[in-house]
């Protein structure tokens, strides 16, 4: 299919990865046998910088520098050891076609890994070294996301018939690469920040009356939710709207869908969904939809700090200057509010008034 992008076409096969692991190992053994210190170069990635002045290369998805691991420093040796230990686990997972979570891997050598974050970094490093995505390593996390609406698909031959009960939440499949036979006649996809709003829409029979698919990542979206979303977008070519709280976290979550997260920047091209359209809530909605004063909370110092930091992100100015303006507006207004505040006057106003008016009126950016 023409619409399929690189996101789905160039998935490395397990045997390719196993070969890469062997090559990697072989190189190390060869170096050692020849009395050379192995030097392992790891690319570093960032998907944004705080240099909004223009000519940064954050949009290019190219590495921004390299790290070198050698046997010269204790910390390097330890890090190399962790990396290789995780690689042993990964090799095993790939050979046996099993899956494990980051936490599972941590528990293989808890004393040596000392901390979960050490394992997380090693996994990221391995992905960079082997030029693959995390799920290619058969490292998965427990799924957090939910989906409902006009959608039918299979995951490893198990049928997910959401359309049968379009107001029932289904867990987002963890093994997105096993998802097949996606069928939908929906008009659009709606991503909501949190479960509470998702439930509101379910209770309002929103999908029934609007012929759409609703997805939530329950806060910061996990990888499977983002990949599943990407898969739907690529397969169904539907517009995709996003509804988040009007607060710094909501905006950050929105940015995570749109641009990917910093710590997974190496894989951003597979994890981001650039097609996403911001539907709301915008700072000015508080006036437009007559939100009572009690629902508007002042931004805390932490909120302001976070907002100011986000305003620096280069991709905003470059790609979505209008988003940035809204964020700026939020900071200036000094208040934030949650989506639930829109339901104050009328419980179903989110589904009967707010969302339809936004979509029909083109009030999104």
């Amino acid at each position, binding site marked *: 299919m023409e619409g399929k992008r690189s996101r789905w076409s160039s998935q490395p096969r397990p045997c390719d990865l196993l070969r890469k692991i062997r090559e990697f190992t072989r190189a190390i053994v060869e170096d050692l046998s020849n009395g050379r210190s192995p030097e392992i170069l790891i690319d570093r990635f960032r998907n944004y910088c705080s240099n909004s002045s223009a000519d940064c290369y954050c949009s290019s998805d190219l590495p921004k520098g390299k790290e070198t691991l050698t046997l010269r*420093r204790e910390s390097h040796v330890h890090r190399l050891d962790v990396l290789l230990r995780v690689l042993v686990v990964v090799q095993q997972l790939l*050979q046996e076609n099993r899956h494990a979570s980051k936490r599972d891997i941590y528990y293989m050598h808890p004393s040596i890994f000392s901390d979960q974050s050490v394992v997380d970094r090693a996994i990221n490093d391995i992905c960079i070294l082997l030029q693959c995505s995390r799920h290619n390593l058969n490292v998965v996390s427990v799924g957090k996301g939910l989906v409902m609406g006009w959608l039918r698909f299979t995951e490893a031959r198990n049928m997910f018939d959401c359309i049968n009960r379009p107001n029932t939440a289904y867990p987002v499949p963890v093994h997105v690469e096993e998802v097949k036979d996606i069928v939908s006649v929906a008009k659009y996809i709606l991503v909501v920040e949190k479960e509470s709003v998702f439930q509101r829409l379910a209770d309002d029979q929103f999908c029934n009356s609007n012929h759409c698919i609703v997805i939530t990542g329950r806060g910061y979206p996990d990888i499977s939710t983002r990949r599943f979303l990407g898969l739907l977008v690529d397969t169904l070519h539907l517009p995709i709207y996003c509804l988040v709280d009007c607060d710094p976290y909501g905006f950050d979550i929105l940015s995570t869908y749109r641009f990917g997260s910093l710590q997974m920047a190496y894989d951003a091209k597979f994890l981001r969904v650039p097609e996403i359209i911001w539907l709301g809530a915008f700072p000015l909605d508080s006036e437009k939809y007559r939100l009572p004063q009690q629902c508007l909370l002042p931004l805390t110092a932490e909120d302001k700090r976070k907002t100011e930091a986000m305003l620096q992100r280069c991709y905003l100015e470059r790609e979505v200057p209008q988003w940035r303006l809204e964020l700026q507006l939020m900071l200036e207004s000094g208040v934030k509010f949650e989506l639930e505040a829109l339901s104050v006057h009328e419980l179903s106003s989110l589904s009967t008034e707010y969302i339809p008016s936004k979509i029909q009126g083109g009030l999104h950016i």
Partner: protein
Amino acid sequence: MNIASVRELCLQLISSAFQRCRASDDLCRLSVILRRSSAPSFPPPVRISVSDTGVGSCVEEFGALKLCREAFGSEIWDGMLSVTTTGIGDNEIFHYQFNLKEAVSTRRLTRLPSNPKNGQKFSGTEVCLSIFESIDVLLAEISRFFQKILILKIPNVAIQLVVEHGDVPGSRYEHVFLPNEGNPLHFSASNLERLKSGLEDYVFKHGNTLGKKCESCFSNWEHLKVGTGVACCTESRKYSESVMEAVIVMSEISELASTCLRTCGSKTEVLYFKDFSVSPISQSSVKALTSIDWKSYGLTFRGVVDQGGFALLEWENLPPYIRIHISLHHYHNQYPKLSRLKMQPDQNLIRKAIKLALDDLKDKHTGELLSAHALKVRNCAPDLAKTISSLIWHSNDSNFREECFSFLGLPSQGVGSEVVEDRIKEKIISVIEMNDKDQPQRHKEVPSFLFEVDHFQDSGSQDEKYEDEDAFSSMDI
């Protein structure tokens, strides 16, 4: 330099005699004879005779001796030296008497009638003095002096130390110190080679007075690891070159329970020589020793004990069976021609010589004197080896395994995982050790931003934090 005691004076006289021998082209003999007189005083007076067959001495040599007041304080010596000397070209044997108690140097000397040589061609000197002193104390001190001076392995001097107990027959003690006894060197060997060989002999003899290798401590030669270093400094103005030679020996004692253990235990006495003689070590040199970056050789320097000219270096964390020996020799390479030139005690010279010696030792003996840093890295090697081995071992690709084995020089069949692991460990360790040698150059290559990326982490914690919030709200149901 002022001489502070009569014993020091004796050593000075012996040292001078040794220099006269060394200056001679021929083989020479240096005899020190201690003879207890039968006089009924206590302690009985000891007559000390220092005689040598070296080039003759000049009168000024004795007239210029400067003694502190304290040297006469304890009234064990009357200040009188009798000197008999003749040069190879002299026709007479001269006799002098020096009264060193006399402050005005011109009044010190009394010329006595000389003897004709009757045309015989020989040279030599004898210096005698009588003091009230324990003969054992003198014997021990002079012995130690000779043991040390042997380290220089000056090839043409034989030393004889004799004790005669008055008229008691059969009570004569005699010890001969020969430079080439332990480990003969070619006559043309350099000063540094002699110093190295001398220190080796000294270490093997292990402080015992037997003059031979201590078999219970050293069962074979290989336990010594030696490094040498030379630092030169051209003092341009005088056209003279100051040389600092350093030899470092690491010895491994085979049996800890041995009774041969040195008194200084795991401390290191720095054996200091100056212009081919035993010398006390100067304060500034001690300072130089403390300022060496021992850590980069895996040594933890605790401090230095400066005991009136002896410097004892103290170590921490040194394994109990390891001993470190250091000797330093500082001289002008035109000595004795220019011996009157004062040498600057150059701290840099000491540091440089010792560092070169340490590097030399490390180079020759892989795995020794690894830096503290490399030691830490090396501690990770078993883990890393195990990991790499398990990467190989857990691969289901047998070709790959065999390929790896062949890299490691192992047979493709029938090797156990421990063997692989051990082999990899060896390789890793040797890489680490090699890396440690040429550290200074390499270190600059490592990109410095490797671990500065920690600020990347700050937004990474978000997801975790958010998950915690979830955890809480689940309680809320």
